[in-house]
Structure formats: structure tokens, C-alpha cells
């Protein structure tokens, strides 16, 4: 308690079980790494506030019970030429290969249904970039209570049919369609309004390690079905 301001020795830090688990989860800082900020951060902070107290204890009365929620930001976006009152933008979301032991239980696109510009505002919705006949929306378990300015489209069935389980990197493309409410010239301001985190993908996962056969776990964690130390194995699973 006398050294609260001093940095803990590295060997102490690595002995903390939480840190060992976190270091398995997240690779070291890379050149592409950027700190979280803006609307995605506000969205996830609200999710966190509803799910856990400030000390990190999960709340008993939380509306959803999953092991992990990942917010994915679009890797690319493209604005289509305006057609009448409609302003459309496509967003590409990179989907990482499915991690062993994690089951997708919900997928949703979170977006802002109303965008305000200086002299006008837009009413928006989102759609997957797909033929109407292949669209099967819904299917997910309940998410968290959204902040007032946000809406969600549940695309669990669509993701599970089209993308999951996936073994290689793929891209989900969605389009954000906005309709102008007033007949004024928006100029190029709408591009900026749509480009700034107007929509992102939210994936909910459950960890299925507990139900995985022990032999499969051994292979997964050590790469050697015969040579694993059972005690070490148990620690890594935890």
C-alpha cells in the first residue's frame, strides 16, 4: 500500500491471472493500433455501465448474459451519388476468422437513425448488401438497452447463414440509406455526416470452452494431444 504510485515489477504483473488472460487475448501494441474514442467508445461505455459496476463486477440484473461483446468499426466506406432525397453509403466490416471456443449468439448493426446537419437532417436505416431473397434478419438474443440516439438492426440469422462459422477473413458489406427531410441543398456536408462512425457492427459471443472435450482442448492449447501438463492446461483454460 505504500507503493501505490510506483510501477509494479514486471514479474509481479505477469503473475496476476487476469493479466495473463488478457495478454493471451490481445496482441502487443502494433503500428495500426489506435486508442478508442468517439461514438464507438461512448456506445461501449454505455454497454459496460449497464453490465458492470465501476469496480468491474458484473451486475446481477444485466439484460444480456454473454461472455464477450466486440464492436467492429468499418474498415472502408464509399458514398454513392445522391438520388433525389436519398443519400447512400456502403460500409465494409472485416470479419476475423472464427475463434475456437467462441459461439456467435447475436450480431447487430448499430446506427444513428437521425443525423443532424447544419441546415437539415437525415432519417437513416441500414441494410445488408445482399439480394432481398437471401435476407433473413433477426434471430439474436436480446442485447442491451440502447442509448436514445441509437438504433439496431439484428442480423444474427444473416451472419450465421452467410458468414459463420468462417475459417478465413471475410468482409460484411452493409449500406446506410438516409432520406433528407427538407428540400435544401446539402452540398458535401452529408458525406462528412455519414462518414463519422454512423454505423458499426456489434457481435455477441459465448465462450464454449467448458463444453469442449478435454482432448480437443489439449490440442488447441498445446498443439500436442499427448504432452500437455493437466495442471497447466487447467490454468490456461481458466
Amino acid at each position, binding site marked *: 500500500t505504500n507503493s501505490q504510485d510506483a510501477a509494479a515489477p514486471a514479474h509481479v504483473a505477469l503473475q496476476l491471472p*487476469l493479466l495473463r488472460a*488478457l495478454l493471451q*487475448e490481445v496482441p502487443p501494441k502494433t503500428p495500426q493500433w489506435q486508442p478508442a474514442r468517439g461514438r464507438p467508445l461512448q456506445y*461501449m461505455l454505455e454497454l459496460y455501465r449497464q453490465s458492470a459496476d465501476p469496480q*468491474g463486477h458484473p451486475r446481477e440484473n444485466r439484460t444480456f448474459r454473454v461472455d*464477450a461483446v466486440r464492436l*467492429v468499426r468499418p474498415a472502408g466506406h464509399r458514398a454513392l451519388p445522391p438520388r433525389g432525397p436519398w443519400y447512400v453509403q456502403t460500409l465494409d466490416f472485416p470479419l476475423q476468422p472464427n475463434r475456437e471456443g467462441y459461439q456467435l449468439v447475436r450480431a447487430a448493426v448499430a446506427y444513428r437513425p437521425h443525423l443532424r446537419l447544419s441546415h437539415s437532417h437525415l432519417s437513416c436505416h441500414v441494410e445488408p448488401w445482399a439480394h432481398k431473397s437471401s435476407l433473413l434478419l433477426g434471430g439474436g438474443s436480446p442485447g442491451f438497452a440502447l442509448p436514445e440516439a441509437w438504433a439496431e438492426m439484428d442480423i444474427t440469422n444473416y451472419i450465421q447463414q452467410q458468414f459463420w462459422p468462417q475459417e478465413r477473413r471475410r468482409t460484411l458489406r452493409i449500406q446506410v440509406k438516409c432520406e433528407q427531410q427538407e428540400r435544401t441543398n446539402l452540398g458535401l456536408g452529408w458525406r462528412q455526416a455519414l462518414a463519422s462512425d454512423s454505423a458499426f457492427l456489434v457481435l455477441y459471443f459465448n465462450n464454449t470452452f467448458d463444453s469442449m472435450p478435454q482432448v480437443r482442448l489439449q490440442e488447441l492449447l498445446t498443439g500436442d494431444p499427448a504432452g500437455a501438463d493437466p495442471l497447466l492446461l487447467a490454468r490456461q483454460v481458466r
Partner: protein
Amino acid sequence: QVGPMRSEVPGHSPEQTQCSLHPFRISFHQLGLENWIIAPNLYSPNYCKGSCPRVLRSGLCSPNHAIIQNLINELVDRNIPRPSCIPYKYTPISVLLVEASGSILYKEYEDMIAQSCTCR
């Protein structure tokens, strides 16, 4: 037949040294991880410390084996150690972090905070 009671530790009352849960907090800033751990700011793993008494009270949730091991230490062989003071129940922790890809991840980690202690 159990022999006569003797003091646990000379100069200390059993209440002061008996196995119990102790608070311990560390910040992610202290660990150099504040750049990618968004919440919480502090991690409180806590710890268990203290001696295990000769008579294991029910509040310590010790199994029958711990009681037997205590008796063996007392009556048969002092080389057999008495039970150790270790965590009994844990609670999970929820963490909000930034991944290398720029994604933001909320995740619950089981068994990360010691909630009570036992002698076993």
C-alpha cells in the same frame, strides 16, 4: 484424544493472524496497460493470508480432509503440514479493452477476484 491446546503464535492473538481475506488493489496504469484497458481503472484481486487454526471453524468451509490433515500434523507427524490459507470463492471481472485491430471488446473473465478464504 486431542492433546492440550497451545497458543497459535506467541505474541499474537488468533484473531489477528487467522486466515482471512485481505483487500488488494492495483491500477492498470501501474501495470502499464492503461492504453488499452478502458474500464475498470482498478483491479482488485484481493488475497488470503493468515494461519489456519487447529480447530477449523465452520466459517472457513474446510473439507473433512483438512481437519484430518490438521490432526495428523498435531498427533502423528509434524512433517505433514497444516492446511493452507487459500481463496475459496471467486467472482468474475468485466473488462472493456481496445484490440490491436481497433475493435472494442467487452469481456467477462471468470474467477478473477477472491471473495472468501478457506483452509485446505
